């Protein structure tokens, strides 16, 4: 706070430190981003307007024929399957990495901390890259298959889970752990009997939350040719069958809602 006698300077100083300054900067940055759009070219491409109209009309009504509904259900199942497989791998990879990253395995030592730091970097790298980018890389390496999709979800999600697991394990209160140690527990048993039970509810809670995101991730694996809701949406879009597109969007919506509801109930039950 600049406290000078001159009221003009005071008000100027107040202007700069005020939150208004931040807001103006943010608005300015947003306006800058608008300049990146090519406003001179056509924003809506030729035929785009009528496409939009057809797309909107496709909602009334969406494609509800039994044959298509069956297709949508199968596609939803395929999405779920890949999401679940990816999540399970993510937990299998993320849990041990998270434990190591928390530094609570083994006895306190410089090397243990160094390893923890390295693992943290690895986890950060894993989750920095978007699952679809991983998918494209896996396809380039191993070819088009379910493997690519499952790994593409498992790797970044393992990174996210591992990081949260390590934080939760570290945030555990020390009191009961000291009790276990003074009762003669080895550091491994302190981990298993002390940290894990106290941390497990938060870990489960976050894992179920991530599962909802995994559903969405599995849906877009269509981009690498994995069958599922995203794949069918692409097909229907290419055929301009907008009624089908809406039906599939609703299936996706419903699937995510279902998992979201399940996940919320699980978390509520864990909080009690």
């Amino acid at each position, binding site marked *: 706070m600049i406290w000078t006698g001159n009221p003009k300077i005071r008000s100027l100083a107040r202007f700069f430190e005020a*939150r208004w300054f*931040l807001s103006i900067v943010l608005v300015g*940055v*947003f306006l*800058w*981003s*608008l300049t*990146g*759009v*090519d406003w001179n*070219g056509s*924003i*809506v491409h030729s035929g*785009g*307007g009528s*496409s939009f109209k057809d*797309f909107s009309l496709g909602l009334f009504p969406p494609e509800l024929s039994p044959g298509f509904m069956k297709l949508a259900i199968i596609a939803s199942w395929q999405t*779920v*399957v*890949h999401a*679940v*497989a990816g999540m*399970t791998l993510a937990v299998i990879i993320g849990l041990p990495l998270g434990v190591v990253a928390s530094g609570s395995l083994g006895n306190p030592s410089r090397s243990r901390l160094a390893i923890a730091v390295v693992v943290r970097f690895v986890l950060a790298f894993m989750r*920095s*890259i*978007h699952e*679809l980018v991983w998918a*494209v890389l896996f396809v*380039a*390496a*191993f*070819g088009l*298959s*379910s*493997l*690519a999709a499952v790994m593409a979800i498992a790797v970044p999600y393992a990174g996210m889970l591992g990081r949260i697991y390590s934080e939760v394990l570290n945030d555990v209160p020390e009191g009961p752990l000291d009790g*276990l140690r003074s009762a003669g527990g080895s550091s491994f048993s302190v981990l*298993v*009997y*002390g940290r*894990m039970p106290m941390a497990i*509810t938060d870990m*489960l809670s976050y894992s*179920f939350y991530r599962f909802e995101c995994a559903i969405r*991730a599995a*849906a*877009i694996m269509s981009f690498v040719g994995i069958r599922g809701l*995203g794949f069918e*949406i692409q097909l229907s*879009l290419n055929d301009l069958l907008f009624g089908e597109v809406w039906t599939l*969007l609703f299936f*996706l*919506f419903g*699937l*995510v809602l279902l998992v979201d509801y399940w996940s919320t*109930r*699980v978390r509520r*039950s*864990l909080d*009690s």
Partner: protein
Amino acid sequence: MRNHASAWRDFVQGRTGFTFARASLYGFFVLAVVSWLYILVGADSGFGDLLSSRAWNNAGGFLRQLLGLEDGLTGEGRPAFLQLDRWGETGRLAYETLMMSVLAIGLAGLGVLLTFLPAARNVSNGELGGRPSAVMGAIYHVLRIFFAFTRAVPELVWAMVIVFFLSPGILPGAIALALHNYGIVGKLSAEVVENMDPGPARALRSAGAGNLQMLAYGIIPQSMPHFLTYLLYRWEVVIRTTVVVGFVSAGGLGREFRLSLSFFQYTDVALIILWYLILVLGVDLISAFLRRMVRTG
């Protein structure tokens, strides 16, 4: 606190209070087994390849090409990430990608600011003031459903649809990202208003504030820090997703990534990944800095 050795035993043996969670865990386990069976038994799962040395050789080759240790089909000579002009070209695309992410977040934020208040139950049913009205109740439900729908659909799917009406560039991608994040930040911001301490708003009432004044002096100042924090957190996610959305909407690094892959120019791919990591790191740092500014008021 309970003795934790027995807590662990209790949990495994099912003597704890969270029955639904435990049932869900078992249910998920069953789902996992079924899913893996479905995948492994299905044709073309790719997992069989893990056992073949050919697949690993291919993968190894890919990795080597990525790192520039082996020339790909194009036989380019020097790897792209060792060429300065390539850095500049890709850098320009990274700049475009950054713009796309800011545009997306800005549009999402604008949308939320306009609609999060009526989407809060305590505002729309008049708890905080004013009389409940059927119109406000209807608006509340419509907005909440809209949040849920835009949130549920992944950004890439939105992009696929939007590219049908808008010309390629950064705009369709930005709108797709904005839609998805609008749903997320909108729901969170409305919940902030719903969970808010009613004390200050009530005190403003007794100081004589009317509804609009109470919104301006009480509710908005208290919800702004949370709103900005959520928006900044989402920016960190958006910058990662912008590249992916660029695959479809043909803007920024994403388009170049796709092109380079299809032309097997793997060192270009590596260069793009490097710029991508720089962007991600940069945005994470700026977001953390801005969030700290927001927190200290």
